[in-house]
């Protein structure tokens, strides 16, 4: 770690997010959902960092924790050199970290015209005077491919792809540094997805943005990101340069995930499912590796102690300096 500190835009260290599980007549606390169980990662300025994993792995919670929408039970988040308050009060930072939600049908206020949807953030943050707001909003709408005739329309008059553009304009008009994109194209058809992904890449280049790109779609993450992390049950199990993760994964879960992916190009090699069973629930998880219950290589130590995310070793191809894996028995290249 000899890189200059100002290379990093965001640093998350040992982040925990717990939700109480309540039940019964008196809504007593019956357990704890460990949505994030000690997550650490860092984002460099200007990069697109992909975050993948299956439902319930905590990838959305991580995105929400960054903007103060999830209760932080431990750990710290440092943004642009400043430690963010753990109580979720992000007034000073709200503008700089923006979150784009998956469902553009649910995330835009149905009774506000586009002009207000995009402009209100400028007014709230005091970034523009009342007579500048419309001009600034329009400029950003035009940048994302909409125009003046859209200013007075309401969200329901737009298609899914257009709504996602409105959500982007609404975020970008505040000049954020980091945008958390939570499954930004999952609700869109593929032809519209392509337009949206292209737009996101252009905007990052032009505006010098950094993205945390959360998705369950491995193909999209491979196309979009330079580095990525794989999550399982509230933990990061593997992290590294995107091409390294796809070409030389070492964690048994990453390998299973990639092997499960249907493919048009490799359709002849119809694979058998690589994993049996469902992921366990994150309610009061047992000690040990989160993947131990489904892993083909589990040994006694895996059930006793959780392996730390450590630099990957034994990769003759180098593996990239950032390749880290949390496993006692990683799959080394050349094995099966």
């Amino acid at each position, binding site marked *: 770690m000899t890189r200059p500190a100002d290379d990093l835009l965001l640093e998350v260290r040992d982040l925990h997010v717990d939700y109480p599980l309540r039940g019964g007549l008196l809504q007593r606390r019956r357990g704890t959902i460990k949505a994030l169980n000690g997550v650490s990662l860092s984002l460099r300025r200007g990069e697109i960092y992909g975050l993948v994993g299956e439902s319930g792995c905590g990838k959305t919670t991580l995105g929400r924790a960054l903007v103060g929408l999830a209760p932080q039970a431990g750990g710290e988040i440092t943004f642009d050199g400043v430690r963010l308050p753990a109580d979720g009060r992000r007034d000073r930072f709200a503008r700089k970290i923006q979150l784009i939600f998956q469902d553009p049908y649910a995330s835009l206020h149905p009774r506000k015209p586009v002009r207000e949807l995009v402009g209100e953030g400028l007014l709230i943050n005091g970034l523009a005077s009342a007579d500048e707001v419309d001009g600034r909003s329009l400029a950003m709408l035009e940048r994302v491919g909409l125009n003046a005739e859209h200013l007075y329309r309401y969200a329901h008059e737009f298609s899914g792809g257009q709504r996602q553009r409105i959500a982007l304009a609404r975020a970008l008009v505040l000049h954020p540094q980091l945008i958390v994109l939570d499954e930004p194209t999952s609700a869109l058809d593929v*032809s519209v997805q392509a337009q949206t992904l292209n737009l996101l890449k252009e905007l990052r280049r032009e505006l010098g943005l950094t993205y945390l790109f959360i998705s369950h779609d491995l193909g999209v993450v491979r196309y979009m990101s330079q580095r990525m992390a794989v999550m399982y049950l509230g933990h990061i199990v593997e992290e590294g340069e995107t091409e390294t993760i796809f070409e030389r994964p070492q964690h048994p879960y990453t390998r299973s995930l990639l092997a499960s992916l*249907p493919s048009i190009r490799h359709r002849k090699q119809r694979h058998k*499912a690589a994993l049996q069973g469902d992921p366990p629930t994150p309610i009061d998880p047992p000690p040990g590796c989160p993947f131990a219950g489904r892993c083909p290589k589990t040994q006694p130590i895996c059930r006793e102690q959780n392996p730390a995310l450590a630099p990957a070793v034994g990769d003759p191809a180098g593996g990239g300096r950032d390749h880290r894996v949390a496993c006692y028995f990683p799959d080394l290249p050349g094995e099966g």
Partner: protein
Amino acid sequence: MATASPPLLAVEDLQIRFHTLRGVVHALDGVSFEIARGESIGLVGETGCGKSITARAILRLVDPPGRITAGSIRFEGTELLTLDRRAMRTIRGQKISMIMQEPKVSLNPVMRIGRQVAETLLIHDRSLSHRQAEAKARDMLGSVSIPDPARMAQRYPHELSGGMAQRVMIAMMLVTRPRLLIADEPTSALDVTIQAQILDLMTDLIAEIGSSVLMISHDLAVVAETCDRVIVMYAGTVVESGTVDAVLDEPSHPYTRGLLNTLPDQVDPDRPLQSIPGNVPSLLAPPVGCRFAPRCPEAGPRCRRETPAAYDVGAGHVAACFLHADGGVA
């Protein structure tokens, strides 16, 4: 075309209209295809292209304001569109079953899953006793790899994960050994590792029973790995069909080519993704001629005038595009 035996299912010139307050929605126009015995066909296309309504039409489950206004659907030689309701009920579930995308929405929330599977059996086979049906249901739950079927049979749908609930649906739909299984996005609500399990399970069971399959999906890769042939739909029409290899290796309709080019796993991360310009047309007033013409990079005047027929481009591979017709697009 060597047609030794008639196809299991023959859909011909199917037309569906929705009469709404805003006008008539031309949901489906001139859709024709056949499914042979033991064959798996994938029906792909984007939202609103008509793939789900085609499946529902086969089971005569098109609800008002939708109406089948023309065409024919023959199953084992019998015309389904004029069949009386009682005869149709014996076909539904017994000879043609359907698996939906959201298993938890399709299952009865207040009935134990063992009974739901048994009930399917009882409806279609009156000679079974309740006890026999429940025993058979437990066997079926075991054969879809549900652990401890006797205990799981006592559970309610909300106690199951998405993958488990979809296994129950598969058990219910295959317990009558149908000739045709329609699967409408059966794995779209599931995670990829669970999707792989469910696709394996479906493939194995179907091979054992010998059913034909109509698999509806927006995911070309799922269809590529599980089907023999594929039908591509756009805006209520079939634009291309053929074997999976022919259509994916040599896509012959500009829409299919566009669709394949937009997939991010097909390209180099340093190049922008190709996209199809514009949006899917409103089916209240679909474009005259080819419905893809307004977005098509290769369209000519003829495309905006006439509706293309299905032209042969190879063995059993057809494309509804004037590029393959005498005289071309001019």
